């Protein structure tokens, strides 16, 4: 399940290099930012930090680490938060609806011809 969804985003926004990996809900994000002060907070560290809060870590309280060093302000977030699983009832309900929709679309929408004698689709009266 951890390798089920791998999403990697690399973006350069406001001179911030941003790397994000999502392993089925386990998120890892790294952002590097030049020391350009944030126009509002005047704090260069917040450039990378804000981006991580926005892009990587869906909940600001989950930021684990942030560091500044040298001429590059770097922020690293390793988020070990795994999304909670949905209610089992709603999962089953949506699975049933999806199965119904997909089965109906395939069954009624397609016009495929099965083998004769299967007793399901083909038994010609005139053969």
């Amino acid at each position: 399940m951890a390798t089920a969804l791998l999403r990697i985003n690399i973006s350069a926004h406001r001179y911030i290099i941003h790397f994000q990996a999502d392993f089925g809900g386990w998120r890892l994000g790294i952002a590097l930012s030049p020391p350009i002060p944030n126009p509002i907070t005047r704090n260069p560290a917040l450039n990378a930090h804000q981006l991580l809060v926005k892009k990587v870590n869906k909940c600001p309280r989950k930021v684990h680490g942030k560091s500044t060093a040298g001429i590059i302000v770097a922020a690293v977030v390793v988020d070990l938060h795994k999304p909670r699983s949905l209610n089992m009832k709603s999962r089953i309900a949506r699975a049933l609806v999806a199965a119904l929709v997909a089965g109906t679309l395939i069954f009624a929408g397609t016009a495929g011809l099965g083998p004769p004698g299967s007793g399901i689709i083909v038994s010609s009266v005139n053969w």
Partner: protein
Amino acid sequence: MLTLSAIGALLSGALAFWRRPCMPRYWPLLAVAIVPQVGSLVGISIPGMFFVAIAVIGIWCIYNRDIPGTAVVAIGIGLNLLVMGVHNGSMPVRADILLRTFGVVAAPGTILVGSKDVVIDTSPLWLLSDWIILSLGATKVIVSPGDLIIVAGVAWWLLFSQKPEKDQAHADIIDQTGVARTAYTPAPRAE
């Protein structure tokens, strides 16, 4: 096809159980589309009834056009609808393909009971008819290009229309409010 549909439904349900696709609206409308197929299983045959089923699915696709994959399904439905419209609401299957696949001789014009198909000799739209032979182990089925496109559309819907889970959507809202709060925090005044 019933077995294939059941397998497709099971796979789709398992996929939707694991990931959350965008659920289509007006899905009970599809019950109307399935009536002619069920009717054919019990031996009821009304000319053009499968045409109605295909048309209903087309309408359903229009209602759900914003969901990924339904446009692909609509294309497949459209192709089937086009060729069935030319042949009085039945899906044509060439006699030579029927003979080659199942070893059955049928005269052109024969309506195949329990299916949507009518046997033809030739047709200007034969490329859209049932002519693609799929071997599933010992079983063979003949499908049309529209059928394959419909199955691809269903797969597209299930795989690429993921909707964020409820708690994730809630976290997104918290995130946006948190970012907005940070962005508008006034700078500390220099002493």
